[in-house]
């Protein structure tokens, strides 16, 4: 139990660092840490498949892509102009209010049932695979369109046009 709270604290801590770090590269590094804490959360919930996917896809691929892009366009320095204090304040304030509003509207600050693993095998690859390729086959297939489209698009946009520019 205390493990959860510790990890939760870390999650929040790192995510705050993500948005407050001046250097974008640091932000990414903090984000990696944050995602790592998420992976731990998944493991805690015995969602092994997600933990692995999160580790590989998010931290391994996506964030590295971020980092790569940052390096590519030389933004690895504290180049970002600082927003006016008022804007920042308004942003933080808005975010804070959002937390309060969300939580309040969920009305679940009070104690509720603990999360109990009814089915310890739930998050295992085998189990999820069954669900994914049975019930969720259709979305799985369709999401290939998504990826294809994104792929084509990314290539289309990121390539330099030889003629122009």
């Amino acid at each position, binding site marked *: 139990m205390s493990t959860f709270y510790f990890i939760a604290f870390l999650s929040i801590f790192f995510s705050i660092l993500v948005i407050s770090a001046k250097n974008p590269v640091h932000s990414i590094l903090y984000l990696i840490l944050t995602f790592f804490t998420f992976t731990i*959360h998944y493991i805690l*919930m015995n969602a092994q498949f*997600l933990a692995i996917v999160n580790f590989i896809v998010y931290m391994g691929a996506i964030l590295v892509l971020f980092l790569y892009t940052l390096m590519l366009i030389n933004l690895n320095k504290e180049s970002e102009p600082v927003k006016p204090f008022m804007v920042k304040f308004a942003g933080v304030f808005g975010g804070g209010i959002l937390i309060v509003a969300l939580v309040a509207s969920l009305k679940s600050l009070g104690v509720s049932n603990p999360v109990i693993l009814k089915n310890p095998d739930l998050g295992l690859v085998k189990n*999820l695979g069954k669900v994914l390729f049975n019930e969720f086959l259709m979305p799985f297939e369709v999401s290939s369109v998504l990826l294809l489209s994104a792929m084509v698009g990314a290539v289309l946009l990121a390539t330099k046009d030889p003629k122009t520019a």
Partner: protein
Amino acid sequence: MESLTNTIQSVPLNHYILLSTIIFSIGVTGVLIRRNAIVIFMSVELMLNAVNLLLTAFSVYRGDASGQVFVFFIMALAAAEVAVGLAIIVMIYRNTNSVDINVLNRLKW
């Protein structure tokens, strides 16, 4: 592993909700206060992950696998989005040598 997962047994669902709400909102705050498009995008990713976490918690709580499958799809989306998003950012950087969103105010009024 077993002992690790057992610790979860006594964490109320609400705390998961609270946690992901907070992280979600931190993501939102990040979007609000940053000007670097990439960092903003990262904040969005933070938001998505908060949702993922919550979905997983619900899934576990309900003992229903579909939540975790949904997380899988979200990750697929995130991958697609990152590909496209970074491509766009790179494209813009080529044209403007900047990824500051405040520079992007040609379209207004």
